[in-house]
């Protein structure tokens, strides 16, 4: 597979995992805008595990476990505690940035040192299995949401929480489970970044990808399968803009190229406007 497609897929996969988790949580009616922080936690956990001798697959697993805990912590405040999820998410980003920076310095020293980690081995098309698997996760979520009883309960928690309660379900339990799963997927996204294309952790290594993933959920109008073209568009545009810069001679300022993925997402968003799709009780506290 040529360099362009490989790098486009590698850049798309972490976004896709994180966005799928976020979509799951938002369909349940909560929202975690601290996704960037969760990705950072996953990236750091994978890095720390790999540095202490774990293989790349074990590092991925460690990140997923950290993500489960992160999701549970978010749910404790924003779901069970009924705090404003936007405030919790904002604080979450700051705490994760500071916490991972602090832990990194414990590991690498105050002035840092370049500590490389072993990447996941390639499986097919020069890409690791975990990166390829990421592209099937939205389909799994689609089936879960439309064909299974717990999936329907989750959608009810996001669209009509009172109805769920009336039929004996618990909105808090459903949203907490969704948050835990979303945390694991977000952390896996961050871990995948460190274990594939970025060979190390530095403070802020996710470089805004968590926010791009948030935008992807809106772009997909909360439909899991639409995340795949969205992530490919953003990943492809990112890989493409580096090519365009490297090709040179266009006379266009580099900032225009850097903005390209974001601009594309924005246009796509504008084109899809008015078709709705947001869970009706998104961001409201559990009854």
């Amino acid at each position, binding site marked *: 597979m040529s360099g362009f497609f490989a790098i486009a897929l590698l850049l798309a996969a972490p976004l896709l995992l994180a966005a799928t988790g976020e979509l799951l949580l938002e369909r349940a009616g909560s929202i975690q805008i601290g996704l960037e922080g969760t990705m950072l936690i996953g990236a750091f956990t994978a890095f720390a595990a790999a540095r202490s001798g774990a293989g790349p697959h074990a590092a991925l697993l460690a990140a997923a476990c950290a993500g489960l805990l992160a999701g549970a912590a978010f749910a404790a405040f924003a779901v069970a505690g009924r705090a404003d999820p936007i405030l919790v998410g904002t604080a979450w980003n700051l705490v994760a940035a500071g916490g991972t920076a602090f832990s990194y310095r414990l590991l690498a020293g105050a002035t840092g040192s370049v500590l490389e980690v072993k990447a996941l081995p390639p499986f097919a098309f020069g890409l690791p299995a975990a990166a390829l698997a990421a592209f099937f996760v939205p389909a799994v979520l689609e089936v879960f949401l439309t064909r299974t009883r717990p999936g329907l309960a989750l959608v009810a928690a996001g669209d009509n929480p009172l109805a769920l309660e009336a039929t004996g379900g618990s909105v808090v339990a459903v949203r907490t489970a969704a948050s835990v799963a979303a945390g694991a997927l977000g952390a896996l996204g961050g871990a995948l970044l460190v274990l594939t294309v970025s060979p190390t952790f530095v403070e802020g*290594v996710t470089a805004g990808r968590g926010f791009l993933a948030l935008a992807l959920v809106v772009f997909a109008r909360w439909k899991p399968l639409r995340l795949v073209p969205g992530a490919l568009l953003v990943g492809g545009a990112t890989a493409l803009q580096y090519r365009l810069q490297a090709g040179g001679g266009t006379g266009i300022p580099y900032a225009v190229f850097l903005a390209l993925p974001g601009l594309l997402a924005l246009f796509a968003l504008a084109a899809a406007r008015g078709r709705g799709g947001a869970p009706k009780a998104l961001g409201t506290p559990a009854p």
Partner: protein
Amino acid sequence: MKPRPSILLAVSAFALVSCGKSGPPARSTGFSVALLTPGPISDAGWNAGAYEGLKAIEKELGASISHVQVKSPSEFEEQFRAYAAKATRLVFGHGFEFQDAAARVAKEYPSTVFVTTSGSKTAPNLAPIVFELEQAAYLCGLVSGRMTKTGKAGMVGGVELPSIKSTFLAYEAGFVAGHPGGTARPVFTGSFEDVAGAKAAALALADQGCDFLFQNADAAALGVFKGAEERKIRAFGTNKNQNALSPAVLASAVIDMPRAFVETARRVKDGKFDGQTLRYGLASGVISFVWNPAALANVPPAVVEETKSAEEKIRSGAFVVPRGNF
């Protein structure tokens, strides 16, 4: 990123303890030095070097030190002002981007000396340290030009700051000197932390036929090195000696920041600071071009010789390396 209150607390506590008996308790009477960095000091590069410089000032000149990491230009001014109000004797702003804020605050606090690393603004209590990293970057370019098979080189940068562009200009000049008609293309990732972006940029340049990569991407440099390894091409370290990080690194353009920081602080302490630009190039020993011993076997002896004589000419002033006008 937030300032590091733990360090600030520790330093102010130290200041209180140290002058509790003799001086007024709220103000430090000793030599105090502060540092503002635009990124985390754990980057093992540009910011780490400055923090090591600050620590060296503490050790060698007995100064009380303080550091904050700042993000936005409004924070630059706020922190400069906060340190000046505490009668800090010397405040470093680490990078070109600090000079406007430093110039504004310097007018209001004449008894504090402000030093920005790179820049051009001066006043009786304001001057830039100019690291002439361009001289070593030119040598990297010359080596690449002599050894390239494709006539194409790539340059990966974080943010398009004048100081970053200036090193690219010098590298390109060296490359063209070594390979007339050759081209060197820049790619910017927009961030000094985006390791994945830096790798993607390196791969894109390699796929365009570049067989040598220069970078000024700070913490993201490892992404460039990994990209170079994957495509079996060569890259150069910058700011710190990065030769050990990858077999793809042919040589490093190094800044000995602690040395420049201590020399500058000593001038201020001894009352010899005169608001003149402080230049450090190859001749001062602060800037150096260091071959990677592990890769040297692949370099033709004639290229090593030529690099050496070019370095001599730059040291003696017989050849002036082009640099950005900033």
